[in-house]
C-alpha cells in the first residue's frame, strides 16, 4: 500500500514539476509548485517524518504560494 502511494504521488510530482518549468503562464507554474509541495508533504508523512511534513505544508504549499501571488499581483500592476 505504502509503495503504491509513493509511486503514484512521485509520478504526479514529476509531471507537475515539468509543468512548472515549461508552462508559459506564471500563475499556472506557481500552482504546480504548490501541488509538488502538497505531494511531498504526504510523502514525508509516509516516511514517518511528521515535523518535516508540517513544515512543508505550512511553508512550501501555503506561505510561498501566497507570497508568489502577491508578487505576481505587483508585477501585473507594474505593466
Amino acid at each position, binding site marked *: *500500500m*505504502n509503495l*503504491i*502511494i509513493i509511486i*503514484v*504521488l512521485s509520478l*504526479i510530482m514529476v*509531471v*507537475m514539476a515539468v*509543468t512548472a518549468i515549461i508552462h508559459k*503562464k506564471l*500563475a*499556472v507554474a506557481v*500552482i504546480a509548485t*504548490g*501541488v509538488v509541495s*502538497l*505531494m511531498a*508533504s*504526504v510523502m514525508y*508523512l*509516509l516516511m*514517518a517524518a*511528521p515535523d518535516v*511534513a*508540517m513544515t512543508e*505544508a*505550512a511553508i512550501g*504549499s*501555503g*506561505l510561498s*504560494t*501566497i507570497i508568489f*501571488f*502577491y508578487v*505576481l*499581483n505587483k508585477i*501585473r500592476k507594474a505593466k
Partner: protein
Amino acid sequence: MANIILQIAGGIMLLSIVLSTFRFFKAGSLVDRVVAFDVMTVASISLIALISHFAGRTIYIDVAIIYGLLSFLGVIIIARYLEKSL
C-alpha cells in the same frame, strides 16, 4: 477485515487524486486548475487520515489540520488575484 476495507478506500482516494490531475492538464482556464488543486488537497486530507491509521500514529492528524487551513488560504488568495483586487 477492517484493514482490507481501509486499503480499498485508500486506493479509491489515490484514484481520485489522479483523476483531478487529469483535469489540471485538460483545463480550459486558470479557475479549472485551481478547482483541481482544491479537490487534490481535500482528497489528500483523507489520505493523511488513512496514513495515520496505517502507521498507527494518530498524532499525524495534526498535519491534516494545518494542511486544510493553508490550502484554504491559498485558494482564497488565488481567487482574489483573479478578481484583480488583491
